[in-house]
């Protein structure tokens, strides 16, 4: 059975600025500012393209950002997705 599909706002609704390896993000709809560490900004960039399963996110992260896909990477990805959901930046569709 396919897992949930995750979605995020488009980049125009979440402007970002790089700050010494971290990313400051302004979420326009909530008016909240977030400071993100990798790979959270990369995940949000992928999700902005449309609803995506975690397996596809992982495959694209591996492909585009040279993320290691060994070990418990899927578990780590799920933890980051959960954090982004709690922050209101990602939701399941």
């Amino acid at each position: 059975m396919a897992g949930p599909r995750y979605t995020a706002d488009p980049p125009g609704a979440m402007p970002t600025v790089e700050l010494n390896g971290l990313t400051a993000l302004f979420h326009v709809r909530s008016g909240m500012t977030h400071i993100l560490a990798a790979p959270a900004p990369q995940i949000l960039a992928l999700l902005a393209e449309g609803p995506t399963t975690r397996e596809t996110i992982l495959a694209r992260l591996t492909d585009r950002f040279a993320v290691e896909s060994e070990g418990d990477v899927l578990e780590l990805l799920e933890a980051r997705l959960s954090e982004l959901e709690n922050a209101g930046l990602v939701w399941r569709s």
Partner: protein
Amino acid sequence: MRHNLHLQIGPASFRIGSAWAAPIRALSALYQDYPQAELPCDFTVRLEPQKPWRRWLRPSVSIAGDYVLPGAAPLPLEHGLLAAEMGMNLQMALGQKRLLLLHAATVERGGRALVMTGESGAGKSTLAALLGESGWRLLGDEFALLDPDTGLLHPFPRAVSLKNGAIAVLEGKVAADRFGPLLVGTPKGHIRHLRPNREAIERAREPARPALILFPRFGADLPEAVRGVGAAEAFVRLTQASTNYGHLGLRGFEALTRLVTQTEARAIDYHQTATALRLVETLWAEDAA
């Protein structure tokens, strides 16, 4: 109200009204060199008795205005000047909607500004006042006003609020007629206000480009230290130092990220004012010149 004063301080104008003559008299003397504001003013401060009979009987001053802090304790009438100053701070902190307001002291030299922000007691006011008497132009000791449209800092050269030990330091350097009365036993100890020099007042509509951000920390046992502050840390600390970052939304985010990505930031620890002044000059020469 019975007694009124209209003050223009940098880009902001204040109408201060009082039920008593004394606070307005003290404020008029302290701000004697400032331009009178045209009506209507941006902000209104009212100094009122807590209860009608308290205008005469053990008079205590409540601070009112466009914005109020519920539950704020009134001050005795002899601290009426402090009440007026706190009222102006409050209106600015809660009511400023256009400029990003940072709780910071700011001075300028050669068109470029040094921003100093830190915890209460870090020595911002003392350092700004001393620098303002030694080749720098004082932009303000309480609030830095960052313009989101231009990235420039507007002056807000209110009277400098000197506390406790800092009072004697400045009394030794500045003519007596620029000081307000000594206010004894305020909630922050002894306070004496210092009117900035004429240059600071006459150039109060002249903004400056930020060139260096300092996070000073004072401690009697603190060894002298300097460290770099990355843009992310500076950003977080400045959002905490702002009273209206949340209100400005995307404009505030863009203004502050631009400030921290374009301006060097350093943290300094010191235990003597002379050390801090030396570090300021050294870092300014390294980072901002």
